[in-house]
């Protein structure tokens, strides 16, 4: 079975191995103590919060995904030794520090509206309709401070209130939907879902269809890829695998 796996699957499996697997405790020089949900654990220094928790014996089913800071699954709330401030970050991107108290928040129980964007007017009123709490924003900027992506979260909520779909989309584009802004907001706004609604509306009504997409759709309709497609359909599994592994890739 193993030899039939594609290299990409191996890479994913490799990336998902805990960084600490197979390390001998006697080889580690520096140790720190962290408190996971209040219980003290001694872990090697220089690990991320995620790998430190795994070292301590936690096995993640939820609360981890890409390990690269992209998927937003590993949201964590922590407080550093001697600091009153509650901080937030992605466990896979934040270094564990001595004396840190932490807990993972892999999921935020947040309101997620159902809507059909084809039936909504391209106006600020769409936010008021589905997420009326946006108007409660007091501009405290707590959301921005919480964002591990360093987005100007408050600014995009303010853009939503006034129906500025373009700047909302631009400012919120790198949101990974970790939910940390929402759990900190005193106005109970679900920033990331508001942003998603805004970007969907902007994509449909504001941005227009880009020229290259229009061209490609036309090519497809005219049958440019018909022959290639038919060839692929007739391929055996082996041939398909070969095509897949030898395909042209985007540079990493």
């Amino acid at each position, binding site marked *: 079975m193993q030899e039939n796996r594609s290299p990409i699957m191996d890479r994913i499996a490799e990336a998902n191995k805990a960084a600490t697997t197979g390390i001998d405790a006697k080889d580690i020089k520096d140790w720190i103590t962290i408190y996971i949900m209040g219980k003290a654990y001694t872990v090697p220094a220089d690990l991320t919060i995620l790998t430190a928790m795994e070292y301590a014996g936690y096995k993640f089913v939820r609360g981890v995904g890409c390990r690269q800071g992209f998927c937003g699954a590993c949201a964590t709330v922590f407080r550093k030794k001697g600091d009153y401030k509650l901080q937030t970050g992605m466990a896979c991107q934040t270094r564990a520090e001595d004396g840190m108290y932490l807990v993972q928040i892999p999921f935020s129980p947040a309101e997620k509206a159902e809507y059909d964007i084809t039936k909504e007017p391209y*106006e600020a009123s769409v936010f008021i309709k589905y997420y009326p709490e946006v108007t409660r924003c*007091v501009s*405290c900027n707590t959301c921005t401070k919480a964002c591990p992506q360093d987005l100007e979260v408050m*600014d995009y909520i303010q853009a939503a209130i006034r129906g500025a779909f373009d700047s909302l989309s631009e400012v919120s584009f790198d949101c990974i939907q970790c939910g940390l802004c929402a759990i900190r907001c*005193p106005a109970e706004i679900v920033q990331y879902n508001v942003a998603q609604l805004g970007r969907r509306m902007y994509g449909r009504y504001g941005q227009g269809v880009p020229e290259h997409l229009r061209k490609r759709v036309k090519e497809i309709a005219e049958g440019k890829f018909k022959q290639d497609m038919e060839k692929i359909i007739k391929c055996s599994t082996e041939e398909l695998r070969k095509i897949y592994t030898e395909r042209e890739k985007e540079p990493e």
Partner: protein
Amino acid sequence: MTTTKTETPKLTGTENIKIPYYPGCTLKTTAKNFENSAVAAARALGIELLEIPRWNCCGTVFSLTDDDLIHHVASVRNFIRVQEMNDYGLVKNENRLVTLCAMCFNTLKSTNLRVKNNAEDLKKINDLMYREENYGGKVEVLHFLELLKSLGFEKIRDRVKKPLKGLKIAPYYGCMILRPQEIGIDDPEDPTIQRDLLLSLGADSVDTPYKRVCCGSYQTVKEKNIVAELAYDILSHARKEGAEAMATVCPLCAFNLDHRQKEVKASHSDFEEIPVFYVTQLMAIAFALENECYGFDQNYVDPRPLLASKSLIK
């Protein structure tokens, strides 16, 4: 000044004033006609209203609670943006912040007054916003009407190309630019600033005691009919005094006086519809600016027939 002019007169000393401008959420949504007409009219007078970057909602209503500082943060953050405009050279030594919406004006100016008079409050708010530069208390909140007054109504008269001759307008003030007196821009009992502006545009100004009576404000959300009754009193009084239209500078007053005429008509069979203008729309017409900035589509009672009957539009 009754003849139609063909040339833009030179306004010495007033060209290209760049001044920070706070629009507010309503002017970007349901009152675009207010913003568009005001920005265009200001430009015709050589004033560029520079929208402050990254502005946020003013807070909507000034909180009167003694220890409720969090609801003043929004306004103060906007003042910091004005400081930043100076820091980054978008404006030069310009601490005035111009507003159009009467509600925003009231909230911003009240907050400014509170923090200017209370260093401890200001420190707490500055501390909460530790990521921003401190607000130094130097910003001066100004309503657009005040800016026009400081420019001189004579200058406005000079810019008029199409005097609003024979148009009888009742200026309506409402509460937000008059009360409380510490922040008001005019005599709270007998305001005249809109009258002076209307006269400089060549219109007839119709005075009514209802010009400073509350329109019902946010009651309009839950108590439509109470607001409709107030609108009936205000509007029918103006009609009785001979007014053909109203003028205002508040989007909420405009909503209650204009859009609520639907409810007024339903409960008062004698009621005759009356157009409600933003005073800046009237400026745009008198200055003979582009049609697009008038924005009459957002008015509930269509003012075009009235304007056409006076040959002010085609």
